[in-house]
């Protein structure tokens, strides 16, 4: 046994028990953490606030009768609670995050710093316009970048995320059709589309017709052209598509749609593959949302906030929602009423209160200025290169349903798992044990047991090589019959596999005090 100078064992042989049962329930740095409501005590407070003497004469007899029921915690208790929670999360800062269609790229901290400048972060949306000229000019500058990069004449800035942008685009289309005195109710959506596409179309009052995919992963363009008729409002395509492929006949489809009086909505979720290299405006797109939280690196924050500005063609631009940002001799102004809108415009309404996700705008513009037009182009190329490197390295180890090259994401299916008893889900959970967040699973729906890998431009070759080695190793394990390694995975995460059926069958959606829960 190896000893240090004071006689304490230092060697690895010192370990005698593999998993001691701990008294605390914690395991080393892995802490268990109760709910906030199981911590704290009455009367404790983590903030210094004086007790104000108030009169109740202006409350109209509507004072709260019972306390809210929030627990009382000190500041160190609160800090510790959330730090412990944070350690149960995977994050892009901690490792490769290959979620296809999600563009988990590095989030530069300069962007966070800029968004927190008081001149942006501490502005009220309804301050007099003359006191926010810098903020309005920042929005105008971001609009210039977005319209230039996409080759589109206009952009609506208020949508708060991708799906909200889709809704904005479809409402502009609806308004444009109405202004022509027509009624068109159908929207054509490929079977490989994101779920938000059909959901948005339904929300905007359209019916959805699904366009099949071809065996090569592209949308069935012939079928789509056959489905086009004068009751079709729009086609809604993702390009590059969710199979990671660029739709080769895109321009032709746009022309065919326009010919029957329909519009072309493009889902811009995958813009990171082509930004700085391809302009959607050159492809006949009428509307496309841009996920600033994907392509332009604003952090995903565990599911938001995002931002989904929508670029619009000349045909749709007049219908953009309020508010409108204009610049005249008085400087920048926000137009909040249709009565003040330029005569050439007919805003379809309003997407939300105020004027969009300013915090995300600052971050996105910081990214754009840092990268420049040259760097944005380089980022797309690097993202596409990285995905193709993964596809080429793994297509014979896993199984790839479509011929390369791909765009910025590599799609695999579960063909290589046939006969092993291992599913895509099991494989994904085994990746967790390897220290990776799984790729997107079972999407797109057009591929059996889909595994959609998007490495982004943020990963070095060394990082990609390591990922490839791990994926190849797991594939080998599956093929050699080590099923239990997968079926029970993850073994090494803060939690083993969670029972989702139980969660849905008898939903527990909030904490409740014990006595209330039992009554």
């Amino acid at each position, binding site marked *: 046994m190896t000893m240090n100078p004071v006689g304490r064992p230092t060697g690895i042989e010192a370990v005698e028990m593999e998993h001691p049962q701990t008294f605390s329930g914690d395991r080393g740095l892995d802490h268990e953490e109760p709910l*906030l409501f199981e911590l704290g005590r009455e009367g*404790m*407070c*983590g903030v210094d*606030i004086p007790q104000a003497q108030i*009169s109740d004469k202006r409350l*109209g007899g509507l*004072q*709260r009768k019972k306390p809210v029921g*929030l627990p009382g915690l000190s500041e160190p208790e*609160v*800090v510790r609670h959330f730090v412990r929670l944070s350690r149960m*999360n*995977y*994050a892009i800062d*901690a490792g490769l995050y290959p*979620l296809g269609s999600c563009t988990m790229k590095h*989030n530069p901290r300069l962007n966070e*710093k*800029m968004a927190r*400048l*008081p*001149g942006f972060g501490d*502005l009220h949306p309804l*301050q*007099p316009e003359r006191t926010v000229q810098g903020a309005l000019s920042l929005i105008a500058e971001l609009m210039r970048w977005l319209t*230039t*990069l996409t080759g589109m004449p206009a952009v609506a800035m208020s949508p708060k995320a991708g*799906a909200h942008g889709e809704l904005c685009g479809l409402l502009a289309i609806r308004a444009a059709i109405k202004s022509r005195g027509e009624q068109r109710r159908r929207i054509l959506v490929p079977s490989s589309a*994101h*779920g*938000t596409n059909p959901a*948005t179309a*339904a929300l905007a009052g359209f019916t*959805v017709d699904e366009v099949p995919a071809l065996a090569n992963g592209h949308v069935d363009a012939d079928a789509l052209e056959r489905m086009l008729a004068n009751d079709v409002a729009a086609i809604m395509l993702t390009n590059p598509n969710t199979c990671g492929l660029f739709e080769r006949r895109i321009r032709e489809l746009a022309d065919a749609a326009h010919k029957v009086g329909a519009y072309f909505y493009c889902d811009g979720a995958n813009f990171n593959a082509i930004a700085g290299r*391809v302009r959607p405006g050159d492809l006949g797109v009428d509307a496309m949302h841009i996920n600033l939280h994907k392509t332009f690196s604003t952090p*995903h924050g*565990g599911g*938001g*906030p995002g931002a989904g500005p929508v670029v619009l063609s000349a045909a749709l631009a007049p219908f953009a929602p309020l508010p409108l940002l204009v610049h005249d001799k008085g400087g920048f102004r926000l137009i909040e009423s249709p009565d003040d809108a330029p005569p050439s415009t007919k805003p379809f*309404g*309003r997407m*939300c*209160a105020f004027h969009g996700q300013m915090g995300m705008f600052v971050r996105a*513009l910081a990214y754009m200025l*840092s990268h420049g037009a040259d760097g944005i*182009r380089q980022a797309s*190329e690097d993202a596409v*290169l990285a995905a*193709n490197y993964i596809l080429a390295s793994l297509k014979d180890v896993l199984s790839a349903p479509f011929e390369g*090259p791909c765009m910025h994401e590599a799609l695999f299916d579960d063909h290589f798992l046939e006969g092993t008893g291992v599913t895509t889900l099991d494989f994904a959970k085994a990746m967790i044990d390897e220290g990776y967040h799984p790729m997107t699973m079972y*999407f797109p729906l057009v591929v059996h047991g889909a595994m959609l890998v998007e490495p982004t431009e943020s990963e070095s070759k060394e990082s990609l090589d390591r990922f490839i080695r791990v994926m190849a190793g797991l594939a080998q394990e599956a093929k050699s019959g080590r099923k239990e390694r997968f079926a029970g995975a*993850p073994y090494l995460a*803060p939690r*083993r596999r*969670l029972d989702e059926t139980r*969660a849905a069958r008898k939903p*527990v*959606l*909030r904490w409740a005090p014990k006595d209330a829960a039992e009554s």
Partner: protein
Amino acid sequence: MLRTIDVPNVDALFRDVPKEGVVGREVFDALPDHKGELEVERTLSRMGALNISAGSVPFFCGAGAYRHHIPASVDHLIQRSEFLTSYTPYQPEVAQGTLQYLFEFQTQVALLTGMEVANASLYDGSTATAEAVLMAQRLTRRPKAVLSGGLHPHYAATVETLASLSGKVVHADAEPGRAGDLAKLIDDETACVVVQSPDVFGLIHDLKPVADAAHAKGALLIAVVTEVVSLGLIEPPGAMGADIVAAEGQSIGNGLNFGGPYVGLFATREKFIRQMPGRLSGETVDAEGRRGYVLTLSTREQHIRREKATSNICTNSGLCCLAFTIHLALLGDKGFSRLARLNHGRASSLAEKLAAVKGVSLVTPQFFNEFTLKLPKPADEIVDALAARGILGGVPGSRLWPHQAKMRDFLIVAATETSPEEDCDAFAQALAEVVS
């Protein structure tokens, strides 16, 4: 890498892109090349310096967005990489941090609003209100939504844009300082009545009469709250008969940010959850029987249900929920109640000072931290004159109701714990000067 892929260059990877679609750098001539961190910081800081930030002057704007003090630990904690740079918790085994705080957030929102369940957030208060109306239309299978005149006009416009697609939206007249009679607008076609309290003018409403009127006709009451700090002092909507509560949660944990990102709160009764929009974190157990959390009831959602989903929402306000949850955890019952009292105290004292100015009258007899004044001149002129004196003195009626002459002389003023006594005095003095 190119050798492994077996292509001569990166251009070859883009071979599926039609030739006319590929453009060179020169097409983007109007855009500059990349810059270093120092230079970017300088450029953006200059833009930022052109604005007058709320914290740098006496500041009294509200009307749907409120300036509150955010404890330093909130912003520090939400910037932890594990929160900031994680995705939607689709893989629960490595996202327990996010799922647990969402579960805590849902609980806090339910407690605050006095409702049974809450979701894991929507984009903001206005979109939450629109979603609430759509949900009421689904639940009642009726087309009509009645909006009270005290509903924030941006919220009313957002609802109109969405809910009029498949139904009908009726707007009651805006009468500053008055409850208005909504009962006469409710009929057998009415899906819901939407009432904001405190309303856009700051007036607090007793929701019980309108809840009773709505329920008598089989309609639902949607209560809207744009200043959630009010719930520390005022009876929650759930105790007054609300069926759905849609609220803006910005006031807790989140800065003004010139209008976004904010966080939409959405709470309802348990029996309605299957028609609820948005994500839900639910409790369950793992394979070893340990408690854990997962996204649940996702058969309501777009990624499973596609065109039959209850909403198209995907990305929501994750990190803003976290800021809300942390701030409220720090406050606890005691701090939250004290914060609310402090707000009411400041606003009450300010209202008295301002209403004492000659020609100025208070039109909202009961309020929380925001009230409306009637001025002897158009309020936008007064606001401009105050701004010239370095005071951001509230939101003029013309900003929210452009071209409505009857709203022109109203000024909506908010005071929070961030408005010290001396700022209130400076405001009163300046107002006296500019109205005379």
